[in-house]
């Protein structure tokens, strides 16, 4: 069973994304912030991480940077609300797999996630 980690500081997003992907036979865990996400990644080794860029305590780019700093090459899809050139550049520099924009329709996310998991 593929493992997916959803990192978002929005409870509703976490809840409904989890419900959606669980129905597709994916083992979904969620994290509300960057620190929590890093712990889960270290512990559970998820196949894919859906990482929100803008979060309160720690940004998505910082999480990614720390992760890569630990030589962890876990696949990461970043979800951003803003089409910001610099963030995209930084995320690319730290080896992001996909960069997608909010708001997102679940069906589209499903396609991207399933495609990444199938790789």
């Amino acid at each position, binding site marked *: 069973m593929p493992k997916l980690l959803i990192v978002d500081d929005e409870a509703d*997003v976490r809840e*409904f*994304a989890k419900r*959606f992907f669980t129905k597709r036979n994916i083992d979904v865990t969620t994290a509300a912030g960057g620190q929590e996400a890093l712990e889960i990644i270290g512990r559970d080794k998820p196949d894919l991480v859906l990482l929100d860029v803008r979060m309160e305590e720690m940004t998505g780019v910082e999480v990614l940077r720390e992760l890569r700093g630990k030589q962890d090459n876990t696949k990461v899809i970043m979800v951003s609300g*803003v089409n910001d050139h610099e963030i995209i550049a930084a995320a690319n520099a730290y080896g992001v797999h996909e960069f997608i*924009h909010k708001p997102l*329709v*679940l069906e589209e996310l499903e396609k991207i996630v399933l495609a990444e998991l199938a790789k």
Partner: protein
Amino acid sequence: MFHFVISFLHIEKLKKFVIFLYGYGVVCSGLILFTNLLVGGTKQYFWGFYSLAGRLHPIFLTIFISQIILCVFLLINCYWGLSENTIKKQQIKYVLIGIFIFDFSSVDFIPNYGISFYPFGYGTTALFVLFFAYSIVKYRLLEVNLLITRTSIFLVYCLLLSFPFVIALSWQKQLMNLLGENWWLAPLISSTVLATVGPSIYLFIQRKAEALLLQEQRRYQAALRRASIGMGRVKDLKRLLKLTVNIVTRTVHLKNAAIYLFHPPSGLYILKALKGREDLRDRKHAFIPLNAPLIGHLQKHREPLVYDEVKQRGQDFQDQTLQEIGKMMEGLDAALLVPSFIEEDLAGLLVLGKKRSGKLYSHDDLVVFSILANQAALAIENAQFYEDMKKTHDQLMKAEKMATIGTMADGLSHQINNRLHAMGFIAGDALDTIKLQPRENLPPEAKKVYEEMETSLGKIQDNVKRGGEIVEGLLKYSRKADEGFAAIELNKLLDASLEMAQFKIKINQIDITRDFNGRLPAVRGNFTQLQEVFFNIIDNSYDAMVQRKEELKEPGYRGKLEIRAQAEGSHLEIFLKDNGMGVREKDFKRLFTPFFTTKLSSKKGTGLGLYVIRKIIEENHGGKVDFVSEYQQGSQTRLVLPIAM
């Protein structure tokens, strides 16, 4: 007659000569009355008695004839000097004809020299006087009313002065009885007194009489002058126009009045205010086109048009244009049309109907109305300027608000996006749940409920998407200005800008050439902001190319954007030159004004493009931007940016 011609033609130099001639007239009268030098007796002809020429008569005759010749010469000289077919020319013609008729009266001199010839000259003199009277009334040679009044007053005044002498002559005996030997002192003193105070009495009577005669006219002229002065204070254009027609109709007692103002975008004079004749407020009278003969005439002559004169002259000269103007004035029910100028441009027309009294417009009226119209033009310009300023102010306020929104937008859009995002997930998951639910065994009502929920949830998702697009659009103008500055290569910047542009424009329909050295130094700047700048310029050029293609329809036309760059000291100069429609000269100075757009549909242009470009380049980057354009040829934007150290 000489005096008339001199006054009529305003020849100041010869005024002294007039006094001489009057003196000469007095001398002649004296010679006739007291000597036989001019009139040397009488002779009986078969038709009656007539005077014979005296010794000095030939001299008198010579001076008389040369005087007339001089008048004719002056008139003809002035006539040829006037190139235009003006009222003045018409007037001179009438005066010349009058003098021609008068010349026949010289036959009266023939019998003076003993030749039997009936002196019918008095007949032609009478004809001459009649003719002049007619021309005066018809062609406003002089102010008839004033003339009559002044002449009457002069007569009364003469009677008054001669009164003591009349008394002295008729009551000589009674006075002698009454006053003794020095009786003649009484009439002499009284006439001296009268002669001394006479001029002031004369002036007093004249002033009173004129005031009485022109009371009405002076009253409204004063009112109009006051109104002209007050106009400058009215800032509301609509009110000002309404006020003007109201004042004019009320104070001058006109049947109707209207104002037409030039509307530059449409090139029409548009009816802005109307009083009386409400029935003229229809489509036919709502505007006067720029190419109407009426407008051309006013622009050329810059003088008020009097309907009666226009009509008369149109008939007299068989002038097609004047006849057309006459018809147009008839349509507008205009007895008088006063143009109103702002510098060289005809800014508007004041249409004045007939006076309720039926009186004609006097020369003074025209002067006062011209003052009023020009004052109104200034006031209107003021009001327009004020309105424009208010608009600009509002726009700046709006821009300020936008800037505030900009700083908020970043945080705000994050919040909104997150809400939309969550909403999208909730709807998406609910939809998913419904779709995964087996429905075969459900009753039809339940199936229907599922279907409806499916549609509704789908719609929520559509709205989430659209909401996201709106937030994205809002962010475009509100990116933070203080994000990092870095060394930027022009090629990369252009790539990114074109990438951004291709979502909006069809890049493969135009040619974009890059004509610069690959090893060009990088500029120091904010990538996102500069990307926005180049995107805007490319977008503008593209729109200009499309416009040219659609409007000029040149065969084989293809849009072309040339990008050149060169290092210039510590700066990089970048030129972006297109072969689009270019910008009209009149729009040029407003190009960098926020919210000003020449793009036809408001959907296409926000009017912020160039404003944003200038702000980004000059304020944020310490660079420079200028723009040259030739209408229907193309435009070139030059950007100067600091080279990265």
